[in-house]
């Protein structure tokens, strides 16, 4: 089957949906919004129980340039200042537009209710109660997409496997229709990658099954450059134990914003300040990279909690205060057997966000004509460490900018679907337990390409990924054309995950220093000479490092 579009958008999280809305209101007649799962329900946005950073306080109380200063400081000297400025300035405007679209930001007497997250110089993070920011953002954008009428065609269950490149420009895509197993070709003069990050590549992650880094691989294979791929953010206090169902494992952050809470080691002592953190008197100000470091080091010193993390305690917070802050969530916790007035929970670092990604200019264009990126798929705005609350802001702002840029791109003549890509979709391959191979990749990345790295560990990961690549082979298992064939779908994911894993390993091996989310145990210091970004591209099938 074949579809034609003026603007093709891959991924329907906040970035993809905002891009679609913007492209449509600038007069694009045929926007095609794809998602590998259901429209506006997969990916990271819908799961964001968190807060959203934007300078939207009453006049005189904040300015996007203050937000920018905090973003640049959190990025440890590596942010692209122009992209970071767009995030803060355009992001604030998007937050206000979302308000007009009735997203339901929590309010108080002064305007938007806002909390102060670690790394911010003032209360700047808005939210939707209770722990409902992501679902509210998704629902609001879905409604606006639908309101755009026939200009935006939405198609779910489509996984793009390759972009089509002709004469050095992207002219469309080849995809697998997951529901039927049939191949699909799409011709479009402008394509926006809005596929989110790569957290699924790690055994413990806070995102959805959709975040397998496929957008980075699509970009690489089409000739686009990546930047900062060594910087994977681990969220320090991901839920660890007891098993908690029906809730996002990053839920404890908003608890800490509102209530402080105490992070304790196995001996029930506060410890963050031992490792450079700054939490004091039940406050919450230690940034993510430092907190991840502190929890890991306490465990190495034999002072972890029983499951290998740290305790998080709200036992000093009165029941009425807990109830006022989180209402129905307290009941959900009770259903899981957790009473926060009595019980501590165990938390530990969990793969959460990717600072690295596709290199774009201030119009979200890659170096390949016809190819743009938006949201977490973009690299550079957040440097070596992302400031809390910037992810949704980035998705909204970069989505809007990418949609505007794509709307202005003229149609290129001709579209010839890539024969190799189509042949891969039509191939019949030997049986392979691709689910087990993905689990192995997740274990490799977690063991040696987590927040703490060594040359020996990175070499081990490189060898293990090469072996995995051999085992995965050149053809997907089974026969084409089967409905909801997860074994085959996993193979196409694995193909992209291996390439992206290799990119992270290569960049992490080269950076012989520690900075932000990239900590080298064999190069512990932050080096002034390394205050520079690394770029990567794929040439003749091999990954190359280059100055960004």
């Amino acid at each position: 089957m074949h579809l034609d579009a003026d603007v093709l958008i891959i991924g329907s999280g906040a970035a993809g949906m905002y891009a679609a809305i913007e492209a449509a209101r600038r007069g694009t007649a045929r926007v095609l919004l794809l998602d590998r799962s259901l429209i506006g329900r997969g990916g990271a946005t819908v799961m964001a129980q968190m807060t959203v950073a934007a300078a939207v306080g009453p006049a005189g109380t904040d300015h996007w340039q203050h937000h920018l200063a905090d973003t640049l400081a959190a990025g440890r000297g590596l942010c692209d200042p122009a992209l970071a400025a767009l995030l803060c300035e355009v992001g604030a405007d998007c937050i206000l537009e979302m308000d007009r679209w009735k997203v339901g930001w929590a309010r108080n007497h002064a305007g938007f209710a806002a909390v102060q997250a670690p790394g911010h110089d003032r209360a700047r993070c808005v939210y939707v109660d209770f722990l409902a920011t992501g679902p509210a953002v998704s629902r609001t954008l879905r409604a606006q997409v639908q309101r755009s009428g026939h200009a935006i065609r939405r198609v779910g269950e489509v996984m793009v496997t390759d972009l089509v490149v002709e004469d050095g420009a992207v002219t469309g895509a080849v995809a697998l229709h997951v529901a039927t197993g049939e191949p699909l070709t799409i011709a479009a003069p402008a394509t926006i990658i809005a596929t989110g990050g790569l957290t699924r590549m790690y055994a413990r992650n806070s995102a959805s099954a959709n975040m397998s880094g496929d957008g980075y691989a699509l970009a690489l294979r089409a000739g686009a450059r990546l930047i900062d791929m060594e910087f994977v953010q681990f969220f320090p206090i991901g839920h660890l134990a007891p098993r908690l169902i029906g809730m996002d494992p990053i839920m404890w952050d908003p608890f800490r914003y509102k209530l402080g809470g105490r992070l304790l080691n196995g001996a029930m002592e506060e410890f963050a300040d031992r490792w450079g953190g700054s939490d004091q008197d039940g406050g919450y100000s230690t940034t993510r990279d430092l907190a991840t470091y502190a929890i890991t080091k306490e465990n190495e010193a034999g002072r972890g909690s029983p499951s290998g993390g740290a305790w998080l305690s709200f036992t000093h917070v009165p029941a009425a205060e807990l109830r006022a802050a989180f209402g129905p969530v307290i009941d959900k916790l009770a259903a899981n057997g957790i009473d926060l007035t009595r019980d501590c929970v165990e938390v530990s670092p969990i793969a959460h966000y990717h600072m690295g990604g596709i290199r774009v200019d201030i119009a979200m264009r890659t170096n390949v004509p016809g190819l743009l990126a938006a949201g977490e798929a973009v690299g550079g705005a957040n440097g070596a460490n992302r400031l809390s609350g910037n992810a949704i802001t980035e998705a909204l702002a970069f989505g809007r900018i990418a949609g505007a840029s794509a709307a202005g791109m003229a149609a290129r003549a001709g579209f010839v679907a890539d024969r190799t890509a189509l042949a891969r979709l039509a191939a019949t391959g030997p049986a392979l337990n691709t689910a087990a191979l993905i689990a192995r990749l997740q274990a490799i990345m977690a063991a040696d390409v987590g927040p703490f790295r060594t040359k020996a560990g990175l070499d081990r990961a490189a060898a293990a990924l090469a072996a995995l690549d051999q085992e995965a082979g050149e053809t997907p298992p089974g026969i084409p054309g089967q409905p909801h064939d997860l074994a085959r779908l996993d193979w196409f994911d694995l193909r992209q995950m291996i390439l992206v894993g290799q990119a992270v390993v290569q960049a992490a091996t080269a950076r012989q220093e520690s900075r932000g989310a990239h900590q080298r145990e064999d190069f512990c210091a932050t080096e002034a000479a390394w205050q520079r970004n690394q770029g990567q591209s794929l040439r003749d099938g091999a990954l190359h490092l280059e100055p960004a």
Partner: protein
Amino acid sequence: MPTARLLISRGGAGDAARHEAFNILFEPGESVLDGLRRLRVTADPSLAFRYACLNANACKECMMLLDGRVIYACTARLEAREMRLDPLPNKPLLRDLATVIAPPDERLR
């Protein structure tokens, strides 16, 4: 560790109905989705069901029948007994426990 015996409906549209049994060890508190995802890794990668968000009950994709009742697999817990899993009865079947649940105007055809 306790063992759950999952009796899972297998096959696609038009196939004769059959159930396949899988025994799975679990830690108390784990969800049915945890069990199904583990079965794909350890026993049968072709086992089909829908999910995106893993754990958060945010994507709402993992609806299926447990002993005839509609559940979300990510919030129903594994239990040390026989648990019968079937696809949603009122939706077109794709394969095993996966059905067509996308709104009609968001389908390819």
